[in-house]
């Protein structure tokens, strides 16, 4: 057994591809399938390779495929999978109209990590504490997956399978589609961490749409407290269609904390996480409603 975890820091040799065109990437994937891993930002993959968590025979660098890097407004939002977290953070209209996505990008890692990491990479990493997945899930984001067998678009909720697995089947995530949000929609995201640059102990994203002082629709997504990022659907049911009173918000907090299965690990304890789910959900419901009010008055 290697002390205390893998002590290696060098990379084993591997075959390397860096196509400029997307079709070439697809062909490579078709030929080598499970023997090849995709390199985007590299902040996760290279670390995993160094400690021998993964040992790919081939590495496919897709960063030269420029057509996968863009941020477009098209009724909703179309984000190329290679868009860096920095680009998302610096986008004025994301900050205004998809604020929770900005919130997640704001505290993501460090500036260097943000310059390198891509939104596609963060999603495909399948971490249960993925910062970008939580707000996207509240926005009902869709993921476009393309491969040799063709293309398909899946709701982000169906993408992660838990335990670090996803549904990619010889495919590349190329685009994230965020449907247009209603005018009376407010979003918020918060992650609790140990210090200023950290993975989440608990993260939470909320989107709420209001009409006539009642909740027309709501999404409550939790991260780092189950084996994948998930929607707290029972909690959502409590609020949907109701007047959002303090009592309802209290109940929602409690319900959300029951829907999760937090564990104790190096970052925090199961008990603390459970309590924090309550606190975060309550606070973010308030924040989201406040942001709805701001858009209205704007």
């Amino acid at each position, binding site marked *: 057994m290697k002390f205390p975890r893998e002590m290696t820091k060098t990379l084993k040799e591997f*075959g*390397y591809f860096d196509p400029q065109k997307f079709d070439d990437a697809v062909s490579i994937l078709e030929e080598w399938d499970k023997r090849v891993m995709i390199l985007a930002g*590299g902040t996760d993959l290279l670390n995993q390779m160094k400690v021998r968590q993964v040992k790919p025979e081939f590495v496919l660098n897709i960063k030269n495929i420029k057509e996968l890097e863009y941020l477009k407004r098209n009724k909703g939002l179309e984000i190329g999978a290679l868009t860096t977290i920095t680009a998302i953070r610096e986008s004025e209209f994301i900050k205004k109209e998809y604020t929770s996505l900005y919130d997640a990008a704001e505290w993501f890692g460090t*500036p260097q990590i943000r310059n390198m990491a891509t939104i596609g990479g963060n999603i495909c990493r399948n971490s249960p504490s993925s910062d970008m997945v939580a707000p996207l899930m509240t926005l009902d984001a869709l993921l476009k997956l393309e491969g040799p067998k063709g293309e398909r678009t899946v709701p982000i909720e169906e993408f992660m399978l838990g335990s670090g697995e996803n549904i990619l089947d010889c495919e590349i995530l190329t685009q994230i589609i965020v449907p247009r949000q209603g005018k009376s929609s407010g979003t918020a995201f918060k992650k609790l961490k140990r210090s200023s640059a950290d993975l989440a102990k608990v993260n939470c994203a909320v989107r709420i749409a209001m009409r006539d002082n009642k909740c027309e629709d709501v999404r409550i997504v939790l991260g780092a407290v189950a084996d994948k990022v998930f929607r707290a659907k029972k909690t959502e049911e409590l609020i949907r269609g109701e007047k959002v009173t303090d009592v309802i918000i209290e109940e929602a907090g409690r319900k959300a904390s029951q829907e999760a299965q937090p564990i104790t690990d190096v970052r925090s304890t199961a008990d603390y996480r459970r309590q924090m789910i309550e606190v975060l959900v309550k606070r973010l419901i308030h924040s989201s409603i406040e942001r709805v009010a701001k858009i209205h008055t704007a």
Partner: protein
Amino acid sequence: MMEVTTRKTIQMVINGQDREIEVRPNELLVDVLRERLGLTGTKIGCEAGDCGACTVLINGKPSLSCLTLAIECEDKEILTIEGVGDTMKGELHPLQKAFVEHYGVQCGFCTPAMILTAKAFLDKNPNPKEEEIREAINGVICRCTGYMQIVESILAAAKEMREAAHE
């Protein structure tokens, strides 16, 4: 059908100079800079992307060279600490001068990364507030200074750079 690459001669622009070097895919940028190009100013502190000591500017953006393959940098512009200021002429960049005058350096191990990060930041943000500076350098850990004199150095450099720009 693309052929697999097991070694490649790539072009990069390093500190303003065109360089050509043959690399294998599994070589990290930090190792190529330090071991093969003799540019030891870039440091290795953790090799996992946490400490930031390996920061270089790739196409102007602070990036972690310990998590970058050299081969990914084909046709890119790299700036290391050796390319800041003009030491052949004995001229220091205002940041380098400020770090000396305001003691933003103690052991010096994080200094190249700090200066490069600060340079990229000031190039985009010439009149920063203290909080913005701390945010920009949050990716480089310093164990020695407690950050006060680093922030003071960057503020002083920013002031000098603004005044020079107005002349």
